[in-house]
């Protein structure tokens, strides 16, 4: 545990947030605090409201009730680009790269945003240099081999592993304060996941607060400081990975009757 989460005021706070889609409650009365520097995992069965939570935080949907605060400021219902501009960035579960462009040009676009111009992009010190150079620097750091053709290939020809990294890179280009990863491990091979875990740890060391939505529990529990479990749009449990794993309600809701150790092995 690298961070003691209870000392500082929360960086991101959700208060009593609900979202209904025509009578179906996707989220009901969820409270959540994200503290600076921690990795928070959100888990839950399919349809439990994980992605709805992300969409509500990042402004892609407007919550039906409740409020969301970022560093004490009310951001409920703000436009997605405003929220990204404040430093909350997200990846998409279904990857959304610009397929017709070369990989590095995918990053020139976030580097064109007001926030990147202000902050100088990832690793930037306030002054934005040449966008293409910065784009290739970010890609190298995220695992694209610099001297290969890969950063210059058309995005539609890249394999899933690179596309997932490209999603991350797009967020990093904005120099995020909070990074929300929506299932970045899904669809990856075991070796790709194994190389992704140290990357997440490195980003946390760099001071980025990370919210991870995952189905891959084994890897999530490696990196997460705290885990929240959602079920049918409601918060079931919140606590350290060990506490969550030990909780009977989680076993019941998420894992059915199976023993959690078995699930961890095959997950």
């Amino acid at each position, binding site marked *: 545990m690298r961070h003691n989460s209870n000392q500082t005021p929360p960086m991101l706070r959700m208060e009593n947030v609900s979202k209904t889609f025509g009578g179906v409650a996707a989220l009901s009365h969820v409270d959540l605090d994200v503290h600076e520097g921690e990795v928070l995992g959100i888990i839950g069965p399919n349809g439990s409201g994980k992605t709805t939570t992300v969409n509500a935080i*990042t402004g*892609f949907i407007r919550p039906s009730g409740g409020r969301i605060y970022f560093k004490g400021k009310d951001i409920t219902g703000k*436009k*997605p*680009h405003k929220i*990204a*501009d404040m430093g909350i*960035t*997200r990846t*998409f579960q279904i990857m*959304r*790269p*610009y*397929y*017709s*462009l070369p990989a590095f*040009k995918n990053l*020139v*676009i*976030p580097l*064109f*945003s*007001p*926030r*990147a111009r202000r902050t100088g992009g990832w690793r930037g010190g306030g002054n934005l240099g040449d*966008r293409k150079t910065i784009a290739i620097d970010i890609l190298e750091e995220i695992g694209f081999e610099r001297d290969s053709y890969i950063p210059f290939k058309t995005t539609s020809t890249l394999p899933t592993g690179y596309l997932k990294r490209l999603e991350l890179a*797009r967020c990093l*280009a*904005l120099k995020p304060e909070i990074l929300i990863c929506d299932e970045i491990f899904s669809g990856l091979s075991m070796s790709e996941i194994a190389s992704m875990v140290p990357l997440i740890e490195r980003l946390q060391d760099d001071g980025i607060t990370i919210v991870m939505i995952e189905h891959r529990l084994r890897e999530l529990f490696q990196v997460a400081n705290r885990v929240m479990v959602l079920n049918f749009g409601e918060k079931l449990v919140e606590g350290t990975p060990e506490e969550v794993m030990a909780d009977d309600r989680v076993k019941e809701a998420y894992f059915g009757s199976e023993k959690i150790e078995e699930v961890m092995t095959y997950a």
Partner: protein
Amino acid sequence: MSKENRRKERIDRGIKVRSDGLYALLSWREMAYLIAPRFILIAGLLALPLLMPGLYWQRVISIVCIYAMVAISFDFLAHYVGLVCLGGAFFIGVGGYIAGIFNAYFGMPPLVTIPLAAIAGGGFCTLLLLPCLPLRGVYFAIVTLMYPLFMARIIEAFDLFGGTDGILGIDSFSSAFVEQYFVVGILLVFLFGLRRLVNTDMGLIFTAIMDNDQAVRASGINITHYKALAVFIASAMGCLAGACLTHIYMWSGISQFALDFSILPIAATVIGGAGTLAGPVIGCLILVPISELLRDFGTLRIVFYASILVAFILFRSDGIMAFAKRKYEQIERWTQV
């Protein structure tokens, strides 16, 4: 060789490969290879008014340029920003009326009214289209198709600006020569200006919005702002074309909102090659004169016209530009399998 055991192969011409990148600067031949297509287009457009027999065909060339401006603005919006706008007639009409009003009622000369119509008309069209910007694809297309009809009916119903008679007594250009070279010049500026624009970082944002607008929003960029900017650029071009048309015909009226101005540029884009910018110009150079030539056939010309379009869509669906580019850059030959 029988047909089964041979196939066509396409190979890049040597000169195409040699003229890729900086090395082209070392040789005149390679430089010429790169410049030739642009040179032919520019020189051809500048020479056309001189080559035309008589005033009638010179006037046709001016009309070709007017249509071409609308066509490249359509091509830019549809294939570089992802907004398929069927409202070409809306731009033409608004620009035409603004130029007409300022010329006939306030006595401003054409060289003032045309830029004025471009800026003011661009602003007006962008403001009216602003509520439609969140729409995508076919929804945006249908809504924009309604705008010219809407404007025409309003002018007719409230009897505005001369009602169905339109605005009469508008100044023409000072001479036929000025008229032709003015529109040809503006067209070339638009064409090469847009090509520049789409290759800048801002052009990249436009392409990104077309590819994936949600990701652009998640990147902290206000997409409505950029879409509005793109619509302003395109509608200002359309309005300028409309203003030129008003001064050429010395009249502006409801028929400037006619569907022709929306449909023909799109047909020209299909024939010329979508997403090439130069393609729509070539498409207009073919379609508008054909439509003039077929005038003798009366209403039958619609049949000929439609057949040409269908034939193009069936046999050359990627457009003339893609075909010409392939011929220019590659050799084709039969090889034994």
